Protein backbone atom coordinates (compact mmCIF):
# COMPACT_ATOMS: atom_id res chain seq x y z
CA UNK A 1 0.00 0.00 0.00
CA UNK A 2 2.89 2.34 0.71
CA UNK A 3 3.62 2.36 -3.01
CA UNK A 4 0.73 4.76 -3.46
CA UNK A 5 2.70 7.36 -1.55
CA UNK A 6 4.94 7.89 -4.55
CA UNK A 7 2.09 9.35 -6.54
CA UNK A 8 2.48 13.03 -7.33
CA UNK A 9 -0.10 15.32 -5.70
CA UNK A 10 -3.33 15.56 -7.64
CA UNK A 11 -2.33 12.89 -10.14
CA UNK A 12 -4.43 9.76 -10.24
CA UNK A 13 -2.58 6.61 -11.18
CA UNK A 14 -4.38 4.61 -13.81
CA UNK A 15 -5.01 0.94 -13.17
CA UNK A 16 -4.55 0.18 -16.82
CA UNK A 17 -1.66 2.47 -17.71
CA UNK A 18 0.94 1.86 -15.03
CA UNK A 19 1.63 -1.81 -15.75
CA UNK A 20 1.71 -1.07 -19.48
CA UNK A 21 4.38 1.60 -18.98
CA UNK A 22 6.45 -0.84 -16.96
CA UNK A 23 6.23 -3.44 -19.71
CA UNK A 24 7.47 -0.91 -22.24
CA UNK A 25 10.44 -0.21 -20.00
CA UNK A 26 11.22 -3.88 -19.94
CA UNK A 27 12.24 -3.49 -16.32
CA UNK A 28 11.01 -6.49 -14.36
CA UNK A 29 11.21 -5.01 -10.83
CA UNK A 30 9.40 -1.82 -11.86
CA UNK A 31 6.83 -3.91 -13.69
CA UNK A 32 6.22 -5.81 -10.49
CA UNK A 33 6.00 -2.58 -8.53
CA UNK A 34 3.60 -1.04 -11.02
CA UNK A 35 1.46 -4.15 -10.84
CA UNK A 36 1.37 -3.83 -7.05
CA UNK A 37 0.46 -0.14 -7.41
CA UNK A 38 -2.40 -1.03 -9.73
CA UNK A 39 -3.62 -3.68 -7.32
CA UNK A 40 -3.38 -1.27 -4.37
CA UNK A 41 -5.21 1.39 -6.32
CA UNK A 42 -8.00 -0.98 -7.29
CA UNK A 43 -8.32 -2.22 -3.73
CA UNK A 44 -8.42 1.33 -2.37
CA UNK A 45 -11.08 2.27 -4.87
CA UNK A 46 -13.11 -0.82 -3.98
CA UNK A 47 -12.98 0.04 -0.28
CA UNK A 48 -14.11 3.60 -0.96
CA UNK A 49 -16.80 2.36 -3.31
CA UNK A 50 -18.21 0.03 -0.63
CA UNK A 51 -18.25 2.88 1.88
CA UNK A 52 -20.01 5.25 -0.52
CA UNK A 53 -22.59 2.58 -1.47
CA UNK A 54 -23.49 2.22 2.21
CA UNK A 55 -24.40 5.85 2.66
CA UNK A 56 -25.32 7.21 -0.75
CA UNK A 57 -29.03 8.11 -0.80
CA UNK A 58 -31.12 6.43 -3.50
CA UNK A 59 -31.80 9.72 -5.26
CA UNK A 60 -28.05 10.23 -5.63
CA UNK A 61 -27.16 6.70 -6.74
CA UNK A 62 -26.56 7.86 -10.31
CA UNK A 63 -23.67 9.99 -9.04
CA UNK A 64 -22.10 7.37 -6.77
CA UNK A 65 -19.17 6.77 -9.15
CA UNK A 66 -18.45 10.51 -9.23
CA UNK A 67 -18.45 10.53 -5.44
CA UNK A 68 -16.04 7.58 -5.30
CA UNK A 69 -13.77 9.37 -7.78
CA UNK A 70 -13.82 12.56 -5.70
CA UNK A 71 -13.06 10.53 -2.57
CA UNK A 72 -10.15 8.84 -4.39
CA UNK A 73 -8.69 12.22 -5.30
CA UNK A 74 -8.90 13.36 -1.68
CA UNK A 75 -7.26 10.19 -0.39
CA UNK A 76 -4.48 10.40 -2.98
CA UNK A 77 -3.79 14.00 -1.96
CA UNK A 78 -3.52 12.96 1.68
CA UNK A 79 -1.23 10.08 0.76
CA UNK A 80 0.95 12.42 -1.29
CA UNK A 81 1.23 15.00 1.48
CA UNK A 82 1.20 12.94 4.67
CA UNK A 83 1.95 9.38 3.65
CA UNK A 84 -0.33 6.41 3.43
CA UNK A 85 -0.41 5.10 6.97
CA UNK A 86 -3.20 7.31 8.25
CA UNK A 87 -5.02 7.77 4.96
CA UNK A 88 -5.44 4.05 4.38
CA UNK A 89 -6.99 3.24 7.73
CA UNK A 90 -10.63 2.22 7.39
CA UNK A 91 -11.83 4.96 9.73
CA UNK A 92 -10.04 7.57 7.63
CA UNK A 93 -11.45 6.19 4.37
CA UNK A 94 -14.93 6.30 5.91
CA UNK A 95 -14.32 9.90 6.91
CA UNK A 96 -13.35 10.82 3.35
CA UNK A 97 -16.26 8.86 1.84
CA UNK A 98 -18.60 10.69 4.21
CA UNK A 99 -17.34 14.16 3.39
CA UNK A 100 -17.36 13.50 -0.38
CA UNK A 101 -20.95 12.20 -0.18
CA UNK A 102 -22.16 15.09 1.97
CA UNK A 103 -20.52 17.64 -0.32
CA UNK A 104 -22.29 16.09 -3.31
CA UNK A 105 -25.66 16.03 -1.50
CA UNK A 106 -25.31 19.72 -0.65
CA UNK A 107 -24.14 20.64 -4.13
CA UNK A 108 -27.13 18.88 -5.70
CA UNK A 109 -29.54 20.44 -3.20
CA UNK A 110 -28.16 23.91 -3.88
CA UNK A 111 -28.44 23.50 -7.63
CA UNK A 112 -32.00 22.18 -7.23
CA UNK A 113 -32.83 25.15 -5.01
CA UNK A 114 -31.53 27.51 -7.68
CA UNK A 115 -33.48 25.67 -10.37
CA UNK A 116 -36.68 25.88 -8.32
CA UNK A 117 -36.05 29.55 -7.66
CA UNK A 118 -35.69 30.21 -11.37
CA UNK A 119 -39.08 28.70 -12.16
CA UNK A 120 -40.96 30.57 -9.44
CA UNK A 121 -44.70 30.22 -9.77
CA UNK A 122 -44.46 27.35 -12.20
CA UNK A 123 -46.62 24.37 -11.28
CA UNK A 124 -44.62 21.31 -10.32
CA UNK A 125 -45.79 18.34 -12.32
CA UNK A 126 -43.89 15.64 -10.44
CA UNK A 127 -46.53 13.26 -9.06
CA UNK A 128 -44.26 12.27 -6.14
CA UNK A 129 -43.88 15.86 -4.92
CA UNK A 130 -45.92 16.72 -1.84
CA UNK A 131 -48.94 18.93 -2.36
CA UNK A 132 -48.74 22.57 -1.23
CA UNK A 133 -50.97 21.71 1.75
CA UNK A 134 -48.65 18.84 2.77
CA UNK A 135 -45.63 21.07 2.41
CA UNK A 136 -47.24 23.76 4.54
CA UNK A 137 -48.12 21.24 7.26
CA UNK A 138 -44.59 19.77 7.23
CA UNK A 139 -43.22 23.29 7.53
CA UNK A 140 -45.45 23.98 10.55
CA UNK A 141 -44.35 20.76 12.25
CA UNK A 142 -40.70 21.67 11.62
CA UNK A 143 -41.18 25.09 13.18
CA UNK A 144 -43.07 23.70 16.18
CA UNK A 145 -40.46 20.98 16.75
CA UNK A 146 -37.65 23.53 16.51
CA UNK A 147 -39.39 25.85 19.00
CA UNK A 148 -40.12 23.03 21.44
CA UNK A 149 -36.55 21.70 21.29
CA UNK A 150 -35.30 25.22 21.98
CA UNK A 151 -37.39 25.31 25.16
CA UNK A 152 -35.68 22.27 26.65
CA UNK A 153 -32.65 22.80 28.86
CA UNK A 154 -29.34 22.16 27.10
CA UNK A 155 -28.56 18.68 28.49
CA UNK A 156 -32.08 17.37 27.86
CA UNK A 157 -32.11 18.87 24.40
CA UNK A 158 -28.80 17.25 23.44
CA UNK A 159 -29.86 13.87 24.78
CA UNK A 160 -33.20 14.08 22.97
CA UNK A 161 -31.58 15.20 19.71
CA UNK A 162 -29.19 12.24 19.80
CA UNK A 163 -32.14 9.94 20.47
CA UNK A 164 -34.11 11.44 17.59
CA UNK A 165 -31.02 11.02 15.40
CA UNK A 166 -31.27 7.29 15.99
CA UNK A 167 -28.76 6.76 18.81
CA UNK A 168 -29.63 4.50 21.71
CA UNK A 169 -29.16 5.65 25.29
CA UNK A 170 -25.81 3.86 25.64
CA UNK A 171 -24.34 5.60 22.59
CA UNK A 172 -25.83 8.94 23.59
CA UNK A 173 -24.30 8.58 27.05
CA UNK A 174 -20.85 7.93 25.55
CA UNK A 175 -21.13 10.86 23.16
CA UNK A 176 -22.26 13.26 25.89
CA UNK A 177 -19.85 11.95 28.52
CA UNK A 178 -22.73 11.25 30.95
CA UNK A 179 -23.63 8.12 32.85
CA UNK A 180 -26.20 5.73 31.40
CA UNK A 181 -28.82 6.38 34.06
CA UNK A 182 -28.52 10.13 33.79
CA UNK A 183 -28.79 10.01 29.99
CA UNK A 184 -31.82 7.74 30.21
CA UNK A 185 -33.52 10.25 32.51
CA UNK A 186 -32.61 13.15 30.23
CA UNK A 187 -34.07 11.36 27.19
CA UNK A 188 -37.20 10.22 29.04
CA UNK A 189 -38.01 13.60 30.57
CA UNK A 190 -36.93 15.48 27.48
CA UNK A 191 -39.26 13.47 25.25
CA UNK A 192 -42.13 13.99 27.71
CA UNK A 193 -41.54 17.76 27.73
CA UNK A 194 -41.24 17.79 23.95
CA UNK A 195 -44.59 16.01 23.56
CA UNK A 196 -46.27 18.35 26.04
CA UNK A 197 -44.96 21.35 24.14
CA UNK A 198 -46.01 19.99 20.75
CA UNK A 199 -49.41 19.06 22.11
CA UNK A 200 -49.81 22.64 23.33
CA UNK A 201 -49.19 23.79 19.79
CA UNK A 202 -51.79 21.39 18.39
CA UNK A 203 -49.50 18.57 17.23
CA UNK A 204 -49.50 15.02 18.50
CA UNK A 205 -46.54 13.09 17.11
Amino acid at each position, binding site marked *: MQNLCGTAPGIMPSVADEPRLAVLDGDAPSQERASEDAHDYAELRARLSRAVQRICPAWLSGQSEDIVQEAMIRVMRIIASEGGERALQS*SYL*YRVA*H*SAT*IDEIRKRRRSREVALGEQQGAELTDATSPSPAQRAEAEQIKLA*LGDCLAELNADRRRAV*VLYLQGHGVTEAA*RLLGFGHKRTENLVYRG*LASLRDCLSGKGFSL
Partner: protein
Amino acid sequence: MSIRSTDQGLRDAFVGMADGAVGSDACPQAERIFDAASGALGPGETADIIDHITTCGACAESWRVAAALAPAPGRASWRRRALWYLGGALAVAAAVVLYARRAPPTRAGPVP
Protein backbone atom coordinates in the same frame (compact mmCIF):
# COMPACT_ATOMS: atom_id res chain seq x y z
CA MET B 1 -34.59 2.51 26.35
CA SER B 2 -35.98 1.06 23.14
CA ILE B 3 -37.76 3.13 20.55
CA ARG B 4 -41.55 3.22 20.94
CA SER B 5 -43.93 3.57 18.04
CA THR B 6 -44.88 7.01 19.35
CA ASP B 7 -41.21 8.02 19.25
CA GLN B 8 -41.03 7.13 15.55
CA GLY B 9 -43.33 10.05 14.69
CA LEU B 10 -40.99 12.43 16.52
CA ARG B 11 -37.96 10.91 14.80
CA ASP B 12 -39.61 11.20 11.39
CA ALA B 13 -40.45 14.83 12.07
CA PHE B 14 -36.89 15.56 13.15
CA VAL B 15 -35.46 13.79 10.10
CA GLY B 16 -37.91 15.79 7.97
CA MET B 17 -36.12 18.95 9.05
CA ALA B 18 -33.39 18.00 6.55
CA ASP B 19 -35.77 18.18 3.57
CA GLY B 20 -34.40 20.81 1.26
CA ALA B 21 -31.85 21.95 3.85
CA VAL B 22 -28.62 23.10 2.24
CA GLY B 23 -26.60 24.32 5.21
CA SER B 24 -24.84 27.64 5.61
CA ASP B 25 -21.43 29.16 6.15
CA ALA B 26 -21.93 28.59 9.88
CA CYS B 27 -22.03 24.82 9.39
CA PRO B 28 -19.12 22.82 10.77
CA GLN B 29 -17.05 20.88 8.24
CA ALA B 30 -18.33 17.43 7.32
CA GLU B 31 -15.14 15.91 8.78
CA ARG B 32 -15.83 17.44 12.19
CA ILE B 33 -19.38 16.12 12.13
CA PHE B 34 -18.00 12.67 11.28
CA ASP B 35 -15.55 12.91 14.17
CA ALA B 36 -18.31 13.97 16.55
CA ALA B 37 -20.71 11.23 15.45
CA SER B 38 -17.99 8.59 15.79
CA GLY B 39 -17.06 9.73 19.30
CA ALA B 40 -13.63 11.03 18.29
CA LEU B 41 -14.25 14.48 19.82
CA GLY B 42 -14.50 15.34 23.50
CA PRO B 43 -17.92 15.86 25.12
CA GLY B 44 -17.59 19.67 24.96
CA GLU B 45 -16.89 19.80 21.23
CA THR B 46 -19.52 17.13 20.60
CA ALA B 47 -22.06 19.22 22.52
CA ASP B 48 -21.29 22.20 20.26
CA ILE B 49 -21.96 20.11 17.16
CA ILE B 50 -25.17 18.70 18.66
CA ASP B 51 -26.34 22.25 19.42
CA HIS B 52 -25.78 23.07 15.76
CA ILE B 53 -27.58 20.02 14.36
CA THR B 54 -30.58 20.82 16.57
CA THR B 55 -31.39 23.72 14.28
CA CYS B 56 -29.63 22.71 11.06
CA GLY B 57 -31.34 19.94 9.10
CA ALA B 58 -28.46 19.66 6.62
CA CYS B 59 -25.90 18.96 9.34
CA ALA B 60 -28.32 16.67 11.18
CA GLU B 61 -28.47 14.63 7.98
CA SER B 62 -24.67 14.72 7.72
CA TRP B 63 -24.52 13.34 11.29
CA ARG B 64 -26.91 10.49 10.45
CA VAL B 65 -24.88 9.58 7.38
CA ALA B 66 -21.70 9.60 9.48
CA ALA B 67 -23.33 7.48 12.19
CA ALA B 68 -24.27 4.89 9.56
CA LEU B 69 -20.64 4.59 8.54
CA ALA B 70 -18.59 5.36 11.62
CA PRO B 71 -17.89 2.76 14.29
CA ALA B 72 -20.29 3.19 17.19
CA PRO B 73 -18.74 5.48 19.80
CA GLY B 74 -16.89 3.52 22.42
CA ARG B 75 -16.80 0.31 20.42
CA ALA B 76 -13.19 0.80 19.38
CA SER B 77 -12.05 1.35 22.95
CA TRP B 78 -13.98 -1.73 24.02
CA ARG B 79 -12.07 -3.76 21.43
CA ARG B 80 -8.79 -2.28 22.61
CA ARG B 81 -9.66 -3.20 26.19
CA ALA B 82 -10.58 -6.74 25.11
CA LEU B 83 -7.21 -7.09 23.38
CA TRP B 84 -5.41 -5.95 26.53
CA TYR B 85 -7.33 -8.49 28.63
CA LEU B 86 -6.58 -11.22 26.12
CA GLY B 87 -2.90 -10.27 26.03
CA GLY B 88 -2.73 -10.28 29.85
CA ALA B 89 -4.44 -13.67 30.05
CA LEU B 90 -2.04 -15.15 27.50
CA ALA B 91 0.96 -13.76 29.40
CA VAL B 92 -0.28 -15.32 32.66
CA ALA B 93 -0.94 -18.64 30.90
CA ALA B 94 2.55 -18.61 29.38
CA ALA B 95 4.11 -17.89 32.79
CA VAL B 96 2.19 -20.79 34.38
CA VAL B 97 3.26 -23.19 31.62
CA LEU B 98 6.91 -22.12 31.92
CA TYR B 99 6.81 -22.52 35.70
CA ALA B 100 5.23 -25.98 35.45
CA ARG B 101 7.77 -27.20 32.89
CA ARG B 102 10.73 -26.02 34.90
CA ALA B 103 12.89 -28.89 36.16
CA PRO B 104 12.23 -29.68 39.83
CA PRO B 105 14.93 -28.40 42.15
CA THR B 106 17.51 -31.03 43.05
CA ARG B 107 17.72 -31.76 46.71
CA ALA B 108 21.18 -31.35 48.11
CA GLY B 109 22.37 -34.60 49.60
CA PRO B 110 25.58 -35.99 51.08
CA VAL B 111 28.29 -36.23 48.49
CA PRO B 112 29.64 -39.81 48.30
